[in-house]
């Protein structure tokens, strides 16, 4: 599959925007105005952008605790996301969710919640809706290597295969669950996709730091899903640059090495595409994105907090 220049530029722009948003969160975080945990996606932008670029707006995306990149890649509103992290009434959940609970219904980013593996069956249920109503929607669930250790994920894979549901299991393998490396959690001789294969699901592997490879694989997967041939599992090895939760680097605390981090940094998903983009365009785009981000933060900071009364609303529909 040939990816044209316009598409490459678009993929790059989308990754750069996510990177800059996450860096802005890291920069503002010490101000202590964002009073909720943040799990930054820096280093993992290609998986989010490559997968979502293969989707239509009507398709649905679900995610877990590290969802900023997925939300933005699917077209989630930036202002509403930043305001939500600031706990403001203008946030996408009116302040009831925070960074770990993002949603933008209009953009098809249905929801993210932070219990690992727990949104996987929910996404499968959304795929059941799509199938029962013959809506032709594709559903994507972003999950990580840790989720593959959760029983509910295997229950979900089994059900999705059984019912031939149009759902893409987009698995970012970033090698760590918080500080616990993959090698203490799963046997070395078995890959994540091999584990999925046992359920009889179609599996694919793409370099999670190569946005074009992810986009190509996801496009193929979507075609497969739309033809009613059942779910697809896509494994994408990648790496988180910052600490599990929070704005800092943490290579010094001893669970991983600086060398390992540097080797992944050399494989930066953004850098890999930068040579394809004219430097003139880089500058003007960076400026434009910076302004958009500044506006989003200004919006969030100046928005009112929800009043105390709102806390007891929306318990029941």
């Amino acid at each position, binding site marked *: 599959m040939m990816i044209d220049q316009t598409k490459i530029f678009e993929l790059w722009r989308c990754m750069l925007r996510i990177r800059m948003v996450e860096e802005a969160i890291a920069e503002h975080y010490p101000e202590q105005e964002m009073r909720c945990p943040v799990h930054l996606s820096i280093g993992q932008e290609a998986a989010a952008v490559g997968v979502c670029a293969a989707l239509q707006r009507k398709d*649905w995306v*679900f995610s877990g605790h590290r969802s900023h990149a997925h939300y933005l890649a699917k077209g989630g509103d930036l202002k509403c996301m930043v305001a939500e992290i600031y706990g403001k009434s203008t*946030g*996408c*959940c*009116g*302040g*009831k*969710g925070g960074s770990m*609970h993002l*949603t933008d*219904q209009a953009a098809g980013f*249905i*929801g993210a*919640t932070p*219990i690992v593996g*727990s*949104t*996987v*069956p*929910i*996404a*499968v*249920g*959304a*795929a*059941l*809706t*799509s199938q*029962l*109503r013959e809506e032709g929607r594709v559903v994507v669930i972003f999950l990580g290597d840790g989720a593959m250790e959760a*029983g*509910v994920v295997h*229950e*979900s894979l*089994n*059900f999705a295969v*059984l019912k031939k549901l149009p759902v893409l299991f987009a698995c970012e393998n970033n090698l760590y669950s918080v500080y616990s490396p993959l090698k203490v959690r799963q046997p070395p001789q078995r890959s994540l996709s091999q584990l999925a294969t046992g359920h009889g699901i179609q599996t694919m592997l793409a370099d999670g730091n190569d946005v074009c490879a992810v986009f190509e694989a996801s496009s193929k997967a979507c075609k497969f899903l739309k033809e009613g041939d059942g779910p697809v599992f896509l494994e994408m090895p990648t790496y988180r640059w910052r600490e599990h939760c929070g704005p800092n680097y943490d290579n010094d605390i001893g669970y991983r090495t600086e060398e390992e981090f540097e080797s992944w940094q050399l494989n930066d998903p953004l850098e890999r595409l930068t040579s394809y983009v004219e430097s003139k365009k880089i500058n003007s785009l960076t400026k434009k994105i910076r302004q958009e981000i500044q506006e989003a933060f200004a919006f969030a900071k100046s928005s009112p907090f929800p009043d105390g009364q709102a806390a007891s*609303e*929306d*318990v*029941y*529909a």
Partner: protein
Amino acid sequence: MKRQISFAEALCEAQAYCLEANPNVYVMGLGVPDPKGIFGSTLGLQERFGEKRVFDIPLSENAITGVALGSAITGMRPILTHQRVDFALVSIEQIVNQAAKWHYMFGGKMQAPIVIRMIVGRGWGQGPQHSQSLHAWFAHIPGLRVIMPTTARDAKGMLIAAVEDNNPVICLEHRWLYGLKDEVPEEDYRVSLEQSRVMQPGTDITLIGVSYMALECLRAAELLKEYRVSAEVIDLRVIRPIDKNTLLNSVQKTGRVLIVDHGHVMAGISAEISAVLTESLFQSLKSPPIRLGLPDYPTPTSPAMSDHYYPESHQIGNRALELCGRKPEMLPVIQNRRLDQPDSSFEGPF
């Protein structure tokens, strides 16, 4: 005489109505389309509405609860059934972390209209893992509705109301109620998901019964008549939210209350009801609210041990007499049936 059908048939009729009325309703659960049809409560539904809308599931209760939620927030109205409450415990993560909070945590952007039916087992050696009544657990979680219909009439009306409600509803059904018949209208109707029901008016004491215990309370009230004690019997039928008005009105009038639960007394729903009543009516109570329920150990299996596990009408009657300042003198009549079956027609195996 008006038409009488069983609790199981009433549940089945409610689901058939909902499937007919709304194309977004679907029914799933382990054994739903099998020859027994969840003790008769789903019989014939797959034949009538097809395999796409009425289907069996893998033994994956947690994922399937998530599937129900995912379909509900995107427009469907699932009814999920578990043959025992105990089986639903592996799905507690999806129920508590997800279904109960999906509306709230996204600021009201989505709704989760799910009905999860769970059956409470009792007797015939159901034992520690087939007979738990955990309604108090679910009642503890904001965002859930919890109902326990007792009569066939309520079973139909409450299940229809539950399916039409836009929240997750936990519907706990006592196995011993399944065969009981009641007058049930043929047409569709709704019974409130927020109101308890006065089954029988009285003036001296209020007996509040949970699920099958409402029937034991009715029997106790009948026995109490012989002692010239007029008992008001309330079928709680709604566990969350607690219908404070109905309970307060009754106890305000009688000044005495006995709460008879089908769950454990320790941290049970009877404690919550007792607290609600005491907080509001402390001055007008003639005696302290008394709780009767399951003892502080799991359900034993052998009939020799389980026979005295559940409160029954004579015990309830005696406690009521005590509360009224009388000597507890009711003697259980010699029963020509075993206590581990509701009546001789129930012959197990589950």
